[in-house]
């Protein structure tokens, strides 16, 4: 009787949905391209790439854990780093080449650059979930 009122949970997402989600995170737009969603991939990927590059050009800086932070103050970097990390391989490439981690607070557009970099990563998380939902059949 009770069980009748409980909706059955959806079957698990196929493994390829996870692969597409990871590819969408790694290279913005790729998760949609591999599913032949050309327009959506171009739009979402283009925005993330554009915002990331614009953020760097505006003088924004990327966040990372560690460095010279004392005690627990390093944890303050965790949230913005998580946002930056959403840009996938773009962030990892910058981390490997030590690009974009220097503060340029003297520049007028410094805060804009930071915001663009943070939001580029966050938007890519959204695009990643979108690619996952499409592959899992939850979205057209």
């Amino acid at each position: 009787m009770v069980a009748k009122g409980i909706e059955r949970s959806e079957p698990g997402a196929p493994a390829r949905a996870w692969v597409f989600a990871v590819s969408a995170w790694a290279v913005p737009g790729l998760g949609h391209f591999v599913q032949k969603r050309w327009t959506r991939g171009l739009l979402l990927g283009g925005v993330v790439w554009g915002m990331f590059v614009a953020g760097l050009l505006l003088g924004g800086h990327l966040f990372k854990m560690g460095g010279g932070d004392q005690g627990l103050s390093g944890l303050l970097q965790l949230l913005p780093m998580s946002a930056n990390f959403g840009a996938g391989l773009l962030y990892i490439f910058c981390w490997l080449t030590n690009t974009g981690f220097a503060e340029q607070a003297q520049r007028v557009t410094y805060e804009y650059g930071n915001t663009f970099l943070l939001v580029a990563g966050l938007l890519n998380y959204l695009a990643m979930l979108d690619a996952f939902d499409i592959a899992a059949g939850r979205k057209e």
Partner: protein
Amino acid sequence: MRHVLWMALFAALTGIVFGGVAKGTDRQKLMYGLKVFGEFLAIAFILGWILYFIPLR
């Protein structure tokens, strides 16, 4: 003026993604993206004018 342009660019790009991942028809997505864009701009202008009248210095 340049600040307004950067803000408008930010709002436009964010609106594109929000509209792009939204559910519904293409028209509904477009309208949602435009709504997000407009809301970003409106809130920024309202906050800007509120801060203008607050003596922070």
